């Protein structure tokens, strides 16, 4: 007898649950159709699904080998690029997919650098580095030669080889030969990115102090998890020469990806850590839509007994029912990677009203009228571009312009996974359009739908001058600083994936 309850519609949770059981090709195709049909919609959901799928790709191993291992990082890179291209083409306007693919590629390249360092002694040309660096104590980092190749995560992680690999590409390296083998343990413990001279000077310093780079904004302990070294990496490096390198690649890459997954689940709470710096008693805050990041941010401030008022613009016609639901019942917690999907009503966060915050729901048109009384505007975008501009829900541009007119600061809350290295050459091409029947339905007024052009844009592109401050999970920064955060997380050679994306000129 067929079940009376229909199967749940395909969504992020069903997809995540199915990942373990289904073969990889089917998983890839399923995600592509979920993206095409927009059954997975928000940035975070797409990021989560993409990360999980790419983890599965790495776990499945090389298609042309009998065991599920990877013989070389370049094969893995090619495979990820191939899968990544398919995913991006499925939904080119979802920028976050491209971001995740590039992050994964960055992790792999990092592993590759480490392995090329362990495998090829010729790369060790640390003495050449002493030119541009000052031979001081281990707390100073190397000035990057080329931004795209510099990755402060390698510097901060204390991995010995990376600074050398930069040098190896910029300078011709003499053979260092046998001395490097003995220095191996010292280099692993070496302080971050210093010259070989100071490595010899301070062999025992703890490499895990992460406050060395003057370029990274995060205080200790709050950098992106993907940047920190995995605890097992050191031991595997020492096994590298013994062979079984392919096992290392897979394990190390999976470690890096696990940290990326971790980052996705803690991003909201990390952003919310800055809440008390920005929200104080008696303030009037304006926000837009039902973003969970913003709800978490406000709840954190409300939890510390700060009394403030929030005007919420309901974002009609695309997000208004979710906004109403969030205000009345509290936000739904986001799907976590190992979610069984049974959170339901019990799992809902506390509502802002229950936390003592006065919440006023206003229609989107009232934003300009109320702006003279607003102290801050809080927004959460779909994606952020490297030049500080952002892609957010439709209506955001009106809010930012009104805020600029009234000199009200606009604070944008965005995790680093939303930050894209792609420069938005084609701004109009980035806007996604949605279902016009949400504006006027055909059943409601067929003649009208027939005779009139109805347009329902889902997103707005806002230039960098509309934003005052970005609060990421690594801390706050001005729009002009974002390009450095981009440089920290992505590699230059990954920016062009060979597929047409939103924002790129054809």
């Amino acid at each position, binding site marked *: 007898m067929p079940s009376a*309850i229909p199967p*749940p519609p395909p*969504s992020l*949770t069903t997809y995540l649950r199915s990942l373990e059981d289904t073969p990889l090709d089917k998983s890839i195709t399923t995600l592509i159709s979920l993206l095409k049909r927009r059954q997975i919609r928000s940035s975070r959901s797409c990021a989560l699904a993409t990360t999980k799928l790419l983890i599965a790709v790495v776990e499945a191993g090389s298609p042309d080998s009998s065991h599920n291992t990877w013989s070389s990082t370049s094969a893995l890179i090619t495979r990820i690029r191939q899968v990544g291209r398919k995913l991006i083409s499925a939904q080119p306007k979802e920028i976050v997919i491209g971001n995740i693919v590039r992050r994964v590629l960055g992790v792999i390249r990092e592993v590759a650098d480490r392995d090329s360092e362990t495998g090829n002694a010729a790369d060790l040309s640390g003495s050449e580095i002493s030119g541009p660096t000052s031979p001081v104590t281990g707390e100073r980092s190397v000035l990057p030669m080329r931004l795209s190749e510099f990755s402060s995560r390698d510097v901060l992680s204390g991995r010995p080889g990376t600074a050398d690999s930069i040098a190896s590409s910029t300078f011709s390296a003499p053979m260092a030969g046998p001395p490097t083998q003995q220095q191996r343990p010292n280099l692993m413990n070496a302080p971050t990115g210093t010259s070989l001279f100071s490595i010899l000077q301070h062999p025992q310093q703890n490499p895990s102090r992460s406050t060395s780079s003057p370029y990274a904004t995060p205080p200790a302990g709050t950098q992106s998890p993907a940047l920190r070294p995995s605890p097992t990496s050191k031991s595997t490096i020492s096994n590298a020469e013994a062979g079984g390198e392919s096992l290392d690649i897979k394990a190390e890459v999976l470690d890096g990806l696990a940290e990326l997954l971790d980052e996705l689940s803690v991003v909201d709470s990390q952003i919310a850590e800055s809440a008390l710096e920005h929200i104080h008693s008696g303030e009037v805050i304006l926000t837009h839509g039902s973003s969970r990041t913003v709800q978490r941010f406000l709840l954190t401030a409300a939890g510390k007994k700060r009394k403030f008022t929030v005007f919420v613009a309901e974002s*009609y*016609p695309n997000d*208004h*029912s*979710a906004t*109403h*639901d969030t*205000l*009345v*019942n509290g936000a*739904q917690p986001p*799907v976590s990677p190992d979610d069984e*999907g049974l*959170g*339901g*009503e019990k*799992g809902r966060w506390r*509502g*802002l*009203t*229950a936390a*003592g*915050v*006065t*919440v*006023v*729901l*206003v*229609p*989107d*048109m*009232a*934003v*300009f*009228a*109320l702006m*003279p*009384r607003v102290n801050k505007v809080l927004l959460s975008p779909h994606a952020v571009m490297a030049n500080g501009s952002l892609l957010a829900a*439709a*209506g955001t*541009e*009106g809010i930012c*312009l*009104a805020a600029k007119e009234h000199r009200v600061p606009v604070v944008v809350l965005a995790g680093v996974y939303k930050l894209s290295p792609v420069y938005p050459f084609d701004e*109009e091409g980035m806007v996604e359009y949605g279902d016009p029947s949400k*504006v*006027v339905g055909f059943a409601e*007024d067929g003649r*009208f739908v027939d*005779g*009139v*052009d*109805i*347009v329902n*844009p889902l997103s*707005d592109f806002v230039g960098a001058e509309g934003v005052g401050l970005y609060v990421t999970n690594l801390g706050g920064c001005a729009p002009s600083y974002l390009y450095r955060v981009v440089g920290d997380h992505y590699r230059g050679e990954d920016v062009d994936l060979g597929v047409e994306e939103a924002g790129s000129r054809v």
Partner: protein
Amino acid sequence: MSEKVSSAAQAQMAEEPKLSPAELKKRAKAEKQARRAAQKEQEGAPAIPPPTANGVPHGQASQHDEVRQEKKAKIVQAKSVQQSKSSGSQESKGERVAPSSAQSLPARGKTTVAAKEEAKVDSTVVELLSHLYPIQRRANMSGVSKDVHPAVLALGLQISSYEICGSSARCIAMLHAFKEAIHAYTTPRDTSLPRHLVSHYLSPQIEYLRSCRPLAESMGNAIRWLKKLIIEIDPDKPEHEAKNLLSEEIDRFIHERIVVTDQAIAASASKQIREGSVVLTYAKSNIVQKTILQAHAQGTRFRVIVVDSRPLFEGKRLATSLMHAGLEVEYVPFSGLAHVVKDATLVLLGAHSMLSNGRLQSRIGTASVALRAHIADVPVIVCCESVKFAGKVALDSIVLNELAPPEELLLPPSHAPIVPTNTKDTPEAAESNKTKTLHDWASIPNLQLLNPMYDITPAEYIRMVICEYGSVPPSSVPVVHRLANEGM
């Protein structure tokens, strides 16, 4: 006593049969006072409990007197709560309070209940705009003075329900209704028409209209003109001649200052629409509609973009009528503004009123449209008759505004689907009574809904104002106002 408790809302009805005529008279007086208190409550004054001297049929102790008066005060409040707040939860609260309060004897307990009810009622008031409360809308005719003419009664309900919407439309409808009312008027014997008509006949009509919806600026100017006209009538003129004169003058006013003016403005503004223009307009303005139709009738080929607002969706009506006229129309919700301004070559806006500091008061959202167009360097032209020009000034949209009932923001349940979550596998979750909808907003503390109707657009965003005196910059508004509205 218990019978009176059970029928608290109709306390005056439930009576024991044995009552002297004197006591009946006392009851009638108490009812009248309760009604007056209810009216005052509607206007926002706190409910004054009726004096303790009367209304006690059984001659009980003074404590019982107080009990009864407090019960009446609660009834009064319950009634007024029922009238002024249309949401069901408030109603039930009011009814619940009245019987339970009568059962508890100490008067002090009841006042705190009354105070709590006041506080609950007030928590739906957004503090920033507290000067705009209570919200003036009317769904019935309770408490209306007997002098109000039926035509005006009908008009008030039509205005309150947005059947007649738009400041020119309301002004014309009001003047027609006043014409009928004046026609039905007879001067009392010991006074003359100019002295009596305004203060004793027209004033209650105006008060009633004000209780249905705050008066538009055009209506205010028309009333001032009419009052001045009436007062200047020769007292020796026979009544029927005076009434005819008033009728003719009202017709002339409508014709000159609205109908012909609209034609002139449409002719002038339609010259701004050139071949290949893309005209953007917001919500629905009658004058802008006339302009567009005139330009279309002249054969210019252009297309129109209509941006709509919520909750009235007036733009949809404009788009429909333009579509029927054969124009190419693009219709976007307010969120699509950024997308369409790129294509626009001209923005035409209507007005509720033009203020003397050059600012435009128009439908909420107009300021955003004008700002966006200004940034994109698209000219913004306002079409406005001089009857809408005001002597007021305002610096922001909060000082002069009108609030509509927040319930208008609620969407019918079919349009607001349950947000699909990852847990809706079981139907029981959907029926869980813990899930509230926005319709329960009044019962959620700290949650408020705000539905302002107008906003003020700064003068810098407006390129030109077209009125019957010509095309003027926004800074010339006080000059035109003095000329047209005060120099008459």
